[in-house]
Protein backbone atom coordinates (compact mmCIF):
# COMPACT_ATOMS: atom_id res chain seq x y z
CA UNK A 1 0.00 0.00 0.00
CA UNK A 2 1.25 3.43 -0.85
CA UNK A 3 1.18 5.27 2.47
CA UNK A 4 2.93 8.28 0.94
CA UNK A 5 -0.27 9.37 -0.78
CA UNK A 6 -2.16 8.95 2.49
CA UNK A 7 0.35 11.17 4.30
CA UNK A 8 0.06 13.84 1.62
CA UNK A 9 -3.72 13.67 1.94
CA UNK A 10 -3.57 14.12 5.71
CA UNK A 11 -1.24 17.11 5.27
CA UNK A 12 -3.84 18.84 3.13
CA UNK A 13 -6.27 18.71 6.08
CA UNK A 14 -4.74 22.05 7.13
CA UNK A 15 -7.22 23.47 4.62
CA UNK A 16 -9.96 23.03 7.24
CA UNK A 17 -8.34 25.60 9.51
CA UNK A 18 -7.90 28.09 6.70
CA UNK A 19 -11.50 27.60 5.59
CA UNK A 20 -12.89 28.19 9.08
CA UNK A 21 -10.59 31.19 9.59
CA UNK A 22 -11.50 32.89 6.33
CA UNK A 23 -15.18 32.14 6.97
CA UNK A 24 -15.09 33.82 10.37
CA UNK A 25 -13.12 36.77 9.00
CA UNK A 26 -15.60 37.28 6.15
CA UNK A 27 -18.59 36.97 8.46
CA UNK A 28 -17.16 39.64 10.76
CA UNK A 29 -16.34 41.86 7.79
CA UNK A 30 -19.93 41.61 6.53
CA UNK A 31 -21.09 42.49 10.04
CA UNK A 32 -18.78 45.47 10.16
CA UNK A 33 -19.83 46.77 6.75
CA UNK A 34 -23.50 46.41 7.72
CA UNK A 35 -22.87 48.47 10.83
CA UNK A 36 -20.66 51.09 9.22
CA UNK A 37 -21.01 51.17 5.44
CA UNK A 38 -18.78 54.25 5.20
CA UNK A 39 -15.75 52.27 6.45
CA UNK A 40 -16.09 49.70 3.68
CA UNK A 41 -12.79 50.41 1.89
CA UNK A 42 -10.77 50.13 5.11
CA UNK A 43 -12.54 46.92 6.13
CA UNK A 44 -12.05 45.48 2.66
CA UNK A 45 -8.29 46.09 2.87
CA UNK A 46 -8.01 44.46 6.28
CA UNK A 47 -10.18 41.54 5.17
CA UNK A 48 -8.00 40.85 2.13
CA UNK A 49 -4.90 40.95 4.28
CA UNK A 50 -6.44 38.71 6.93
CA UNK A 51 -7.58 36.24 4.30
CA UNK A 52 -4.11 36.12 2.77
CA UNK A 53 -2.61 35.46 6.21
CA UNK A 54 -5.22 32.81 7.09
CA UNK A 55 -4.70 31.17 3.72
CA UNK A 56 -1.04 30.69 4.60
CA UNK A 57 -1.79 27.70 6.85
CA UNK A 58 -3.51 25.92 3.98
CA UNK A 59 -0.54 26.76 1.78
CA UNK A 60 1.86 25.29 4.35
CA UNK A 61 -0.16 22.08 4.24
CA UNK A 62 -0.02 22.10 0.46
CA UNK A 63 3.75 22.64 0.46
CA UNK A 64 4.21 19.79 2.94
CA UNK A 65 2.01 17.51 0.84
CA UNK A 66 4.01 18.34 -2.30
CA UNK A 67 7.27 17.78 -0.40
CA UNK A 68 6.09 14.39 0.90
CA UNK A 69 5.01 13.33 -2.56
CA UNK A 70 7.90 14.61 -4.66
CA UNK A 71 10.93 15.43 -2.54
Amino acid at each position, binding site marked *: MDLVALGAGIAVFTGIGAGIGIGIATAKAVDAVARQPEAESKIMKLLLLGCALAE*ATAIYGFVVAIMIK*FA
Partner: protein
Amino acid sequence: MDIKGKLHELLLEDKVAIHLNIANGFFDVNKSVVLTWILLAVLAVLILFLTSGMRVHQPGKRQLFVEYATQWLRGIVGGILGEEAIGYRDFITTILVFIGGANLMGLFGIVPPTMDLNVTIAVAAVAIVMVEAAGIRALGLKGWFKGFAKPMAVITPMNILELAIRPLSLCMRLFGNILGATVIMELIRMAVPIVVPLVFSLYFDIFDGLIQAYVFVFLTSLYIREAVE
Protein backbone atom coordinates in the same frame (compact mmCIF):
# COMPACT_ATOMS: atom_id res chain seq x y z
CA MET B 1 -4.33 13.77 -19.55
CA ASP B 2 -1.26 13.04 -17.57
CA ILE B 3 -1.45 15.04 -14.37
CA LYS B 4 1.39 13.19 -12.74
CA GLY B 5 3.76 13.85 -15.63
CA LYS B 6 2.86 17.53 -15.64
CA LEU B 7 3.52 17.84 -11.90
CA HIS B 8 6.83 16.04 -12.29
CA GLU B 9 7.79 18.39 -15.09
CA LEU B 10 6.94 21.43 -12.96
CA LEU B 11 8.51 20.30 -9.70
CA LEU B 12 11.39 18.02 -10.57
CA GLU B 13 12.69 19.40 -13.85
CA ASP B 14 16.35 20.28 -14.24
CA LYS B 15 16.64 23.76 -12.79
CA VAL B 16 20.12 24.51 -14.11
CA ALA B 17 20.28 27.05 -16.93
CA ILE B 18 24.02 27.71 -17.24
CA HIS B 19 26.38 24.93 -16.33
CA LEU B 20 29.80 25.96 -15.03
CA ASN B 21 32.58 23.42 -14.91
CA ILE B 22 33.88 24.47 -11.49
CA ALA B 23 33.62 22.52 -8.23
CA ASN B 24 31.25 19.81 -9.48
CA GLY B 25 28.62 22.27 -10.62
CA PHE B 26 28.36 23.98 -7.24
CA PHE B 27 28.29 27.37 -8.94
CA ASP B 28 25.70 26.43 -11.56
CA VAL B 29 23.34 29.25 -12.47
CA ASN B 30 19.69 28.28 -11.96
CA LYS B 31 16.86 29.20 -14.30
CA SER B 32 15.28 31.33 -11.60
CA VAL B 33 18.45 33.42 -11.38
CA VAL B 34 18.43 34.02 -15.14
CA LEU B 35 14.73 34.94 -14.95
CA THR B 36 15.56 37.35 -12.12
CA TRP B 37 18.22 38.95 -14.32
CA ILE B 38 15.65 39.37 -17.10
CA LEU B 39 13.19 40.88 -14.62
CA LEU B 40 15.83 43.28 -13.32
CA ALA B 41 16.76 44.30 -16.87
CA VAL B 42 13.11 44.92 -17.76
CA LEU B 43 12.53 46.92 -14.58
CA ALA B 44 15.74 48.92 -15.14
CA VAL B 45 14.80 49.78 -18.73
CA LEU B 46 11.26 50.64 -17.64
CA ILE B 47 12.52 52.92 -14.87
CA LEU B 48 15.06 54.60 -17.18
CA PHE B 49 12.32 55.16 -19.75
CA LEU B 50 9.82 56.47 -17.20
CA THR B 51 12.24 58.82 -15.45
CA SER B 52 13.91 60.26 -18.55
CA GLY B 53 13.32 63.91 -19.41
CA MET B 54 11.86 64.99 -16.06
CA ARG B 55 11.12 68.69 -15.71
CA VAL B 56 10.24 70.91 -12.76
CA HIS B 57 7.99 73.12 -14.85
CA GLN B 58 5.27 71.78 -17.14
CA PRO B 59 5.77 68.06 -16.39
CA GLY B 60 4.69 65.64 -19.09
CA LYS B 61 2.07 62.93 -18.75
CA ARG B 62 4.72 60.28 -18.16
CA GLN B 63 6.30 62.22 -15.32
CA LEU B 64 2.93 62.83 -13.69
CA PHE B 65 2.18 59.12 -13.87
CA VAL B 66 5.55 58.22 -12.33
CA GLU B 67 5.10 60.76 -9.56
CA TYR B 68 1.60 59.51 -8.83
CA ALA B 69 2.69 55.86 -8.80
CA THR B 70 5.68 56.57 -6.56
CA GLN B 71 3.57 58.57 -4.15
CA TRP B 72 0.98 55.81 -4.08
CA LEU B 73 3.49 53.02 -3.38
CA ARG B 74 5.29 55.13 -0.77
CA GLY B 75 1.95 55.93 0.83
CA ILE B 76 1.02 52.25 1.12
CA VAL B 77 4.35 51.31 2.66
CA GLY B 78 4.72 54.45 4.78
CA GLY B 79 1.30 53.90 6.33
CA ILE B 80 2.40 50.54 7.71
CA LEU B 81 5.88 51.65 8.74
CA GLY B 82 4.78 54.61 10.82
CA GLU B 83 6.70 57.78 11.63
CA GLU B 84 9.70 56.26 13.37
CA ALA B 85 10.76 53.83 10.65
CA ILE B 86 9.88 56.01 7.66
CA GLY B 87 13.53 55.88 6.50
CA TYR B 88 13.08 52.27 5.40
CA ARG B 89 10.26 53.22 3.05
CA ASP B 90 12.22 53.04 -0.19
CA PHE B 91 13.85 49.72 0.69
CA ILE B 92 10.43 48.18 1.33
CA THR B 93 9.01 49.72 -1.85
CA THR B 94 11.86 48.14 -3.83
CA ILE B 95 11.02 44.70 -2.40
CA LEU B 96 7.36 45.27 -3.24
CA VAL B 97 8.15 46.13 -6.87
CA PHE B 98 10.57 43.20 -7.20
CA ILE B 99 8.25 40.54 -5.77
CA GLY B 100 5.23 41.99 -7.55
CA GLY B 101 7.10 41.94 -10.86
CA ALA B 102 8.39 38.42 -10.24
CA ASN B 103 4.90 37.11 -9.44
CA LEU B 104 3.40 38.77 -12.52
CA MET B 105 5.82 36.91 -14.80
CA GLY B 106 3.38 34.00 -14.69
CA LEU B 107 1.10 36.10 -16.92
CA PHE B 108 3.54 35.76 -19.81
CA GLY B 109 3.70 32.01 -19.53
CA ILE B 110 7.06 32.12 -17.77
CA VAL B 111 7.50 30.17 -14.57
CA PRO B 112 7.80 32.90 -11.90
CA PRO B 113 11.26 33.02 -10.24
CA THR B 114 9.51 33.18 -6.86
CA MET B 115 8.42 29.59 -7.46
CA ASP B 116 12.01 28.60 -6.70
CA LEU B 117 12.51 28.22 -2.95
CA ASN B 118 16.06 29.61 -3.26
CA VAL B 119 14.78 32.98 -4.46
CA THR B 120 12.21 33.37 -1.69
CA ILE B 121 14.73 32.28 0.94
CA ALA B 122 17.12 34.96 -0.35
CA VAL B 123 14.45 37.66 -0.24
CA ALA B 124 13.33 36.59 3.24
CA ALA B 125 16.95 36.57 4.43
CA VAL B 126 17.50 40.09 3.13
CA ALA B 127 14.28 41.20 4.84
CA ILE B 128 15.11 39.67 8.22
CA VAL B 129 18.67 41.03 8.17
CA MET B 130 17.22 44.45 7.45
CA VAL B 131 14.73 44.07 10.33
CA GLU B 132 17.43 43.18 12.84
CA ALA B 133 19.80 45.85 11.47
CA ALA B 134 17.04 48.40 11.91
CA GLY B 135 16.59 47.25 15.49
CA ILE B 136 20.32 47.52 16.22
CA ARG B 137 20.53 50.92 14.56
CA ALA B 138 17.59 52.30 16.51
CA LEU B 139 18.28 50.82 19.94
CA GLY B 140 22.03 50.14 19.92
CA LEU B 141 23.53 46.68 20.36
CA LYS B 142 22.77 46.65 24.08
CA GLY B 143 19.19 47.73 23.62
CA TRP B 144 18.72 45.15 20.88
CA PHE B 145 19.89 42.33 23.17
CA LYS B 146 17.69 43.65 25.95
CA GLY B 147 14.76 43.57 23.53
CA PHE B 148 14.80 39.76 23.63
CA ALA B 149 13.68 39.81 27.26
CA LYS B 150 10.66 42.00 26.53
CA PRO B 151 7.93 42.10 27.71
CA MET B 152 8.96 39.43 30.25
CA ALA B 153 12.17 37.48 30.83
CA VAL B 154 10.24 34.18 30.57
CA ILE B 155 9.45 34.85 26.93
CA THR B 156 13.14 35.11 25.84
CA PRO B 157 13.36 31.65 24.19
CA MET B 158 10.28 32.50 22.14
CA ASN B 159 11.84 35.75 20.99
CA ILE B 160 15.02 33.95 19.94
CA LEU B 161 12.98 31.31 18.10
CA GLU B 162 11.19 34.11 16.28
CA LEU B 163 14.48 35.04 14.61
CA ALA B 164 14.24 31.77 12.66
CA ILE B 165 10.46 31.44 12.42
CA ARG B 166 9.87 34.85 10.85
CA PRO B 167 12.01 34.39 7.72
CA LEU B 168 10.85 30.78 7.43
CA SER B 169 7.18 31.73 7.40
CA LEU B 170 7.88 34.67 5.07
CA CYS B 171 9.64 32.57 2.44
CA MET B 172 7.35 29.53 2.77
CA ARG B 173 4.20 31.63 2.40
CA LEU B 174 5.45 33.31 -0.76
CA PHE B 175 6.86 30.11 -2.25
CA GLY B 176 3.78 28.02 -1.43
CA ASN B 177 1.33 30.54 -2.82
CA ILE B 178 3.17 30.97 -6.09
CA LEU B 179 3.77 27.22 -6.43
CA GLY B 180 0.10 26.52 -5.74
CA ALA B 181 -1.06 29.16 -8.22
CA THR B 182 1.29 27.91 -10.94
CA VAL B 183 0.37 24.24 -10.43
CA ILE B 184 -3.36 24.99 -10.49
CA MET B 185 -2.99 27.21 -13.57
CA GLU B 186 -1.07 24.46 -15.38
CA LEU B 187 -3.75 21.90 -14.47
CA ILE B 188 -6.53 24.21 -15.68
CA ARG B 189 -4.60 24.87 -18.89
CA MET B 190 -4.33 21.13 -19.38
CA ALA B 191 -8.04 20.49 -18.79
CA VAL B 192 -9.48 23.40 -20.81
CA PRO B 193 -6.92 25.08 -23.04
CA ILE B 194 -9.03 28.09 -24.10
CA VAL B 195 -11.03 30.93 -22.45
CA VAL B 196 -11.29 29.32 -18.98
CA PRO B 197 -7.59 29.80 -18.08
CA LEU B 198 -7.99 33.50 -18.88
CA VAL B 199 -10.57 33.96 -16.12
CA PHE B 200 -8.61 31.99 -13.56
CA SER B 201 -5.41 33.73 -14.58
CA LEU B 202 -6.96 36.98 -13.35
CA TYR B 203 -7.18 35.55 -9.86
CA PHE B 204 -4.18 33.24 -9.64
CA ASP B 205 -1.62 35.26 -11.56
CA ILE B 206 -2.57 38.89 -11.01
CA PHE B 207 -4.60 39.08 -7.79
CA ASP B 208 -2.85 36.37 -5.80
CA GLY B 209 0.62 37.44 -6.91
CA LEU B 210 0.09 41.09 -5.98
CA ILE B 211 -1.64 40.22 -2.70
CA GLN B 212 1.26 37.97 -1.73
CA ALA B 213 3.78 40.69 -2.58
CA TYR B 214 1.75 43.07 -0.42
CA VAL B 215 1.54 40.57 2.46
CA PHE B 216 5.30 39.99 2.35
CA VAL B 217 5.96 43.71 2.42
CA PHE B 218 3.30 44.28 5.08
CA LEU B 219 4.85 41.74 7.44
CA THR B 220 8.39 43.02 6.85
CA SER B 221 7.27 46.59 7.55
CA LEU B 222 5.47 45.44 10.68
CA TYR B 223 8.60 43.69 11.92
CA ILE B 224 10.73 46.77 11.22
CA ARG B 225 8.22 48.98 12.99
CA GLU B 226 8.24 46.65 15.98
CA ALA B 227 12.05 46.45 15.96
CA VAL B 228 12.68 50.21 16.10
CA GLU B 229 10.19 50.87 18.89
